């Protein structure tokens, strides 16, 4: 149970006992509390006063399945507000097995320096000169780092986009196959890592010092029940292994909620060609892998390995959000091109969502035609080349919109929305507008309430109940991100008995009673910290809004606009 503090200015690494204020929390609760407490809200996100903090979830490193989730926190260079970007892979489990509660990176190296942080199997950390790796793309980088430090390492790194400190730069981390294909994509935290002069973090996966539990037997019993529920659920036990998150393409398109051609339409005529069903068939026919395990301790296996017609690896994992951003959003129905763009983003170190939407804005502005996949690939390659236009793309859709003086830019707090158009699912308008993260689907995903059970338990075109649904889901998700349970493994807590299992595990690990109230308090603590930071950074209620296009342009085929009033938006955080 320790913090590892890395000062990139002084090049020092010290261990610190976790201060009382941060004991008993993990993941997003820890990163957001720490950033709010320790980072000047008005600081330059790329300056020495910003802090980059990596924290495994509270359950990471425990026997519970699907808990290798890492929260990465900092002040975002994209939104100017607080950011928690969440990623799977192996690193969260690796850090937790070494008894590392958080890795805290402070200060800033000089511009001509490049460093990697190495943490060995005993949890000893050291900064190593990495000038040889300056400018490396992530796939080549991890091969060299694995050769030098062992295959059994988890590597978290940035690509050229992060080194160039571009606002849509991601932090990539390795999956179980050692590929840097898992992304903490949102909010440009790769740029913060680049600004600090830190190219990679190499963590031994051989740790045996996970935090002790007060009642290990009670934890194991509850964890076993939880795993059984995840396996028994039709979505996580059957559909995700078969199709991955791409299973969402067809139903969201059918609902008229798949933003198409920079959100000019809600249905894409090429959706069948890029659906999860088509993707799974192509992968199967070419000899790739469906039912692929991407993250440590995963029992869902929603990942995949997409291969070319000759069976050669292209990318892993092809996900719903990327299929949308590089597909429907730019009018592209070529799944091979989407896979290539996904690989390029991982290799260059770019958020696939922000990058795809940046491409969509260029096309909407008339710079290239919608559907021109070859042009999209060239534009993303320009990011790695470091051209001025490439930097524009790498800084995300708002930067592109400003350059072209084009006002149809679907961003909230400067971060692009995700693959659910808020005009077709009003609750997503509330989440996009009010989340302290900016446009973010995972912060408060209310799609199921609006579509499931044969048309939704809420009327998706009505404002009624949407603020409440988004508020409750945002509180809940803040708690989920703090304990470190994978989004898709939430099927294990979707029932009244399931969520009680989670409370039992927190109590068994901590030795303190934990209840429904405590769960809500955990979520509220996170959101209050994030809102407090953003307020001090200069955000006002006027920032909890959507771009005008969503209020003024009816979205075909249902021809609806967002109808949530400003006053209702401001009720979201009435707590």
């Amino acid at each position, binding site marked *: 149970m320790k913090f590892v503090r890395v000062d990139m200015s002084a090049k020092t690494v010290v261990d610190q006992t976790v201060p009382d204020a941060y004991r008993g929390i993990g993941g997003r609760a820890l990163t957001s509390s720490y950033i709010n407490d320790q980072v000047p809200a008005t600081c330059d996100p790329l300056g020495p006063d910003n802090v980059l903090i990596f924290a495994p979830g509270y359950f990471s490193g425990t026997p519970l399945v699907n808990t290798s989730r890492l929260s990465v926190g900092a002040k975002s260079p994209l939104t100017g507000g607080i950011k928690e970007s969440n990623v799977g892979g192996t690193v969260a489990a690796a850090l937790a097995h070494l008894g590392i509660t958080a890795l805290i990176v402070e200060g800033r190296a000089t511009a001509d320096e490049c460093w990697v942080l190495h943490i060995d199997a005993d949890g000893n950390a050291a900064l190593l000169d990495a000038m040889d790796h300056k400018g490396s793309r992530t796939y080549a980088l991890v091969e060299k780092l694995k050769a030098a430090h062992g295959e059994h390492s988890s590597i978290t790194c940035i690509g050229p986009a992060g080194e160039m400190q571009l606002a849509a730069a991601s932090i990539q981390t390795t999956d179980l196959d050692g590929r840097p294909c898992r992304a903490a994509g949102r909010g440009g935290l790769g740029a913060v890592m680049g600004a600090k002069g830190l190219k990679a973090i190499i963590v031994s996966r051989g740790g045996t010092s996970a935090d002790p539990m007060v009642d290990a037997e009670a934890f194991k019993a509850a964890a076993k029940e939880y795993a059984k529920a995840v396996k028994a659920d*039709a979505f996580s036990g059957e559909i995700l292994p078969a199709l991955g998150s791409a299973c969402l393409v067809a139903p969201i398109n059918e609902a008229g909620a798949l933003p198409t051609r920079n959100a000019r339409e809600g249905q894409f005529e090429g959706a069948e060609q890029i659906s*999860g069903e088509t993707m799974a068939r192509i992968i199967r026919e070419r000899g790739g892998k469906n039912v692929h395990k991407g993250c440590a301790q995963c029992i869902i296996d929603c990942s995949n390995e997409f291969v070319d017609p000759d069976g050669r690896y292209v990318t892993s994992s092809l996900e719903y959000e990327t299929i949308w951003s590089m597909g429907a959003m730019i009018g592209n129905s070529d799944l091979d091109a989407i896979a290539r763009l996904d690989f390029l983003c991982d290799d260059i170190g770019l958020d696939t969502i922000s990058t795809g939407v940046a491409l969509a804005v260029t096309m909407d502005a008339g710079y290239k035609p919608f559907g021109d996949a070859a042009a999209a690939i060239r534009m993303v390659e320009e990011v790695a080349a470091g051209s001025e236009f490439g930097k524009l793309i790498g800084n995300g859709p708002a930067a592109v919109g400003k350059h072209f003086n084009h006002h149809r830019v679907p961003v909230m707090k400067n971060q692009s929305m995700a693959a659910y158009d808020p005009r077709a699912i009003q609750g997503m308008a509330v989440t996009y507008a009010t989340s302290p993260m900016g446009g973010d689907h995972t912060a408060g*995903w209310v799609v*199921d309430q609006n579509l499931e059970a*044969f048309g939704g338990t809420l009327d998706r075109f009505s404002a009624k109940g949407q603020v409440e649904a988004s508020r409750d889901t945002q509180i809940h998700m803040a708690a989920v991100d703090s304990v470190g349970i994978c989004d*898709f493994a939430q099927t294990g807590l979707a029932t009244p008995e399931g969520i009680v299992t989670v409370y039992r595990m927190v109590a068994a690990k901590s030795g303190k009673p934990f209840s429904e109230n405590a769960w809500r308090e955990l979520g509220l603590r996170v959101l209050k910290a994030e809102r407090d930071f953003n307020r001090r950074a200069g955000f006002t209620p006027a920032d909890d809004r959507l771009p005008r296009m969503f209020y003024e342009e009816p979205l075909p085929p249902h021809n609806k606009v967002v109808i949530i009033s400003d006053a209702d938006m401001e009720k979201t955080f009435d707590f």
Partner: protein
Amino acid sequence: MTVQLTVKLYGTLDRWFPGYDPNTGCVVHMAAQSTVADLIDHLGVPPRSVGIVSVNGRAAKKADVLPDRALVKVFHPIFGG
């Protein structure tokens, strides 16, 4: 009086129909005034395996009546983000 429907199945729902062709879907005949719920019952798919149904490109409710020659798409439950 009957209605003829073309039914397309998504996710893993095709496992209930050996030989199902995803390109063409399957043709189903139902009594006139049949609803979405009637169709799911007729197909024999467990209702808990169905999350979303669309009729002619519009999300449908259980009680919606199926028009003749409709294209009906049946989707699995969704979750996550």
